[in-house]
């Protein structure tokens, strides 16, 4: 043993100190979640809701929680960091298409779109994560090829085989164009083209029999937002939808399934409340109706997550430093179809809901 004295000393220094580091790392406790359902109507539907929560801790971990109680956690490391988790959500050929330099990517609900504009054709690909269905179509068109650095193309509304696209050209003059991709006929039809004022931005929201709805934001010279509002352009005139002013700053909306109304949510509310609120704007009557349901617990507005999918409103919010209340609301009959608590047995703070997906 004495022959190896130096080796033992240096080995011990390395071994003991590194083991103390590993011991410290192992002692760091993550969250230990469990789902406690308070009210549920359809147990099968719970499997389809996946809530992704991330921690801002020393040891980054991602938790995937299903409302039926299935929980998966994944610690991130240098190897997993090399692999793009976004790519894992798509079929290889769809992701390959999205990765092409001249393809414009956008997302709407569970659908991801990729649009490539070439000199004489437009390549349209879409993938629905909830149904896992992919759609490809090549459409003929006669539009200028956008400059990748100076333009943006995104899908903002889909009605069956009609896909509505906003194209922005940020050249010397800001121009916003609405295109209809008629997937059934394989045609591209320009619907509207507007020259915007400087310090102005436009986001198209929905298209229906009453016209085209968009949200317009005006900035001052310093780039600070000074006004934002929803507008309805029916081809003859443009009117500001004043009833939606309270929601315009947040910009959270969904066109209802029948496209006859707009559901807006996420407007600033009191810091602690039991009420989950949303509004519907009826195009026909030009009226806004407020809706609310009462949850079991008072929740914190800051950090709350709301989204609408398949006619249901999903609301996830902290009820204390570590636990979340999950509420699924049927927007048609204003009733809670599910409510539950995601409890952290280790009561860890600073967790954030990153994403909510609902599969069909």
């Amino acid at each position, binding site marked *: 043993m004495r022959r190896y004295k130096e080796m033992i000393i*240096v080995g011990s220094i390395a071994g003991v100190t590194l083991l*103390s*580091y590993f011991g410290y*790392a192992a002692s760091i406790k993550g969250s230990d979640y469990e789902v406690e359902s308070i009210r549920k109507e359809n147990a099968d539907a719970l499997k389809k809701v996946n809530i992704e929560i991330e921690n801002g801790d*020393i*040891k980054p971990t991602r938790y995937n929680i299903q409302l039926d109680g299935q929980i998966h956690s994944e610690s991130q*490391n240098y190897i997993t960091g090399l692999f793009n988790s976004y790519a894992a959500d798509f079929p290889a050929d769809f992701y390959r*298409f999205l990765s092409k330099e001249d393809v414009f990517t956008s997302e709407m609900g569970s659908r991801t779109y990729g649009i490539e504009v070439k000199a004489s054709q437009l390549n349209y690909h879409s993938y629905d994560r909830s149904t896992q269905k992919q759609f490809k179509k090549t459409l003929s068109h006669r539009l200028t090829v956008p400059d990748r650095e100076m333009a943006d193309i995104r899908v903002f509304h889909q009605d069956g085989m009609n896909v509505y696209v906003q194209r922005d050209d940020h050249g010397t003059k800001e121009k916003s164009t609405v295109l209809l991709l008629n997937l059934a006929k394989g045609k591209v039809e320009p619907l509207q083209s507007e020259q915007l004022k400087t310090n102005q931005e436009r986001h198209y929201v929905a298209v229906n029999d009453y016209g085209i709805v968009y949200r317009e934001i005006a900035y001052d010279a310093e780039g600070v937002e000074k006004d934002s509002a929803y507008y309805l352009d029916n081809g003859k005139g443009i009117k500001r939808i004043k009833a939606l002013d309270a929601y315009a700053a947040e910009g959270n909306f969904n066109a209802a399934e029948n496209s006859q109304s707009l559901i807006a949510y996420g407007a600033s509310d009191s810091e602690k409340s039991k009420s989950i609120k949303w509004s519907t704007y009826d195009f026909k009557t030009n009226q806004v109706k407020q809706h609310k349901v009462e949850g079991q617990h008072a929740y914190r507005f800051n950090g709350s997550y709301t989204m609408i999918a398949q006619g249901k409103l999903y609301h996830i919010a902290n009820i204390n430093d570590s636990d979340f209340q999950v509420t699924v609301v049927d927007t048609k009959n204003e009733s809670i179809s599910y409510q539950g608590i995601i409890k952290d047995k280790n009561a860890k703070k600073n967790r954030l809901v990153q994403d909510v997906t609902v599969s069909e």
Partner: protein
Amino acid sequence: MKKFFMLSNEEIKRSFKLYLSILTMLVIVELTSVVYQVLHYQSKLEDLMKKERLTEMEAVDQLNGPLTFGDATNYFKYMIAIGIMFTILYAFQIWYRDWYGESKYIYRLLMLPGKRITILLSKLTTVLVFVCGFMGIQWITILISRRLYEWLLPEHLQAASKIIGESAALNMLYTFNVIDTFVILALALFVITMVFLFVLTERSYQKGKALLTIAKDVALLIVPFIALRYLFDLTSMLIPNQQVFVYLSFILIYFIYISWKCVRLLNHKVSI
């Protein structure tokens, strides 16, 4: 196995004092830097309060808030850089001292019975154990520094932060994930093996040919990487996750190649 342990011990013995001196120096400099940063912050605070007639809170505001642990360990990144530099220089020195030392130790090493790969493995193990020691001692220094920071600085002047603070260098080294530590050690192993290949190539060929061979081996790493990148960009034939898999496989194959070449040079080419 016995030969491997004997040789490894011999290598460690020969650098034992130097290594312990560097470790001690790094620890002393780092702990001193923490004390300096804390005292310097407090003296700046007092100066501001006296000269500008500010309250302590106002003076703290003027100094951009309380002193964070990341600020207090600001010099650690330079010490880590010195540690990395030392490791790379030591990977050269562990071979060259055998040739240029007074006793021409390399004669004895190469004449030893048994496989020469043991010589390579013992040197590689020595450098890797030193790297582990650096990482471990740095961790202990962070823990002691944290105590020092909490002890020297009044609580209201401290900023809440995680145990290693906000330093990017420390956050890269200590992610609290065991896999990451092994990734860092694997990277160190790759770099050390590259250095060993350069030394053994230089010792195996005449100057011009040695330089050309080294350039060829470096090109064998860089050119395929650039070519793969170009090919992937041009054709989009693989999705990014598949590309990462190809890159990692290539690095693994390259590592096997340089390891094999080190052994081959040591067995057949190295001249005394």
